[in-house]
């Protein structure tokens, strides 16, 4: 990846990797924390590669849906918020039949969901992203069939020390009992 690579993030990755924290109202299950760890690890690795994170317009809307702070949007820093412009609309129309095929073969469960996935992937393509990160299989299938790379979240960090530190800190933050640390891969 070049120094200015653009990487789109789906809502699930932003919520799990950036937003959820130990002060959440929820007591998270160990397998949920494992997903948070994977999202955080992915974001950390991409950030170390100086990638610019891109939030498609509909992702921003989904983030704001849960009592979001619209006021901060006026001066948000550190990410690129692309417009859903005419070119994005054109790409969406072009990849829509792929979405329909994925609904038919069951990769995407509902047509209504597919329409949103199509808009998000089109927005990522039109803004010049090389890849999109999502935990949603449907989004990943649609993206890869539309020519956009859609890798899985990372399972581990190449740097074993960093990997262990991130796992340990996250486990402590979410108050996971030590007896379950091995499930999270903490050594």
């Amino acid at each position, binding site marked *: 990846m070049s120094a200015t690579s653009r990487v789109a993030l789906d809502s699930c990755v932003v919520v799990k990797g950036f937003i959820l*924290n130990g002060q959440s109202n929820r007591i998270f299950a160990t397998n949920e924390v494992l997903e948070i760890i994977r999202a955080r690890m992915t974001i950390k690795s991409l950030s170390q590669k100086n990638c610019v994170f891109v939030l498609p317009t509909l992702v921003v809307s989904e983030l704001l849906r*849960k009592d979001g702070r619209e006021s901060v949007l006026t001066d948000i820093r550190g*990410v690129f918020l692309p*417009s859903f412009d005419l070119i994005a609309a054109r790409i969406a129309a072009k990849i829509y039949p792929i979405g329909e095929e994925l609904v038919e073969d069951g990769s995407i469960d509902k047509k209504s969901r597919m329409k949103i996935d199509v808009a998000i992937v089109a927005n990522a393509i039109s803004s010049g992203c090389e890849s999109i990160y999502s935990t949603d299989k449907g989004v990943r299938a649609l993206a890869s069939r539309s020519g956009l790379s859609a890798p899985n979240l990372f399972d581990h960090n190449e740097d074993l020390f960093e990997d262990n530190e991130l796992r340990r800190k996250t486990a402590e933050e979410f108050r996971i009992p030590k007896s379950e640390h091995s499930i999270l891969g903490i050594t």
Partner: protein
Amino acid sequence: MPTRAIAETLSALRLIVIDPSSESEDPADDPEFKPGMGLVTISGGSARYGVYSSYPSTVERLRSFGILLKEAYRANSQTIGNMFIPFSRLGEIVGKIGADIEIRFGKKLIFSVSHKNYEKIKSRSTVQGTTTISGKLVRVGSVNNDRCVIRHHPSQKLLYCSVATDKLVDELGQHLNRDVALTGTATWLLATSSITNFQVSSVSPIEQLTLDELTAELRNIGKGWNKLADPFKELEDLRS
């Protein structure tokens, strides 16, 4: 015809003769193609200039361009493709000097660019809309202080943008050599979905934040997610 218009015409012709897709925004001098231009005659309200070129396929390529122009004028909007870029430059010169440009080989007309064919082909080949683009801002200001140049992200090509006000030029100057998001009106070439023209209306930097800073920014936007009883279930149901 002003000297500047002559130079711009030669530059547009160069784009037709060499491959315009490789140097669509800022043509480097091709050593094979060194055209020259000299005034031959002035008569009946028109000026005729002689052009010479050492590039072997010059006339052939200009002829192909002429055929393309005819097709684009008659019917299919997509046929002109990347050649819209030099054509639009010639069209802009026509607008500035208030006269048609005719390219002839001997006495035979190869093609002409007029206000009429420029406007017609332009309206068929391009579409305008508001958007935000990103890339590294590499130059700000010009002789008229009304331009900036961005290394536009997806293509990594230089994109020359117009800037409406001096105030905005000053603001752009503060972000020179940085990654920025420019919002404004784009003209896209339908055939390639590439931007041929961009009028900047605002600029915002894409700052390189530390991961902790970025996390704080995004947590602010999605604050409500931490208050939910079951955010994982909400994520699953989000698009249902």
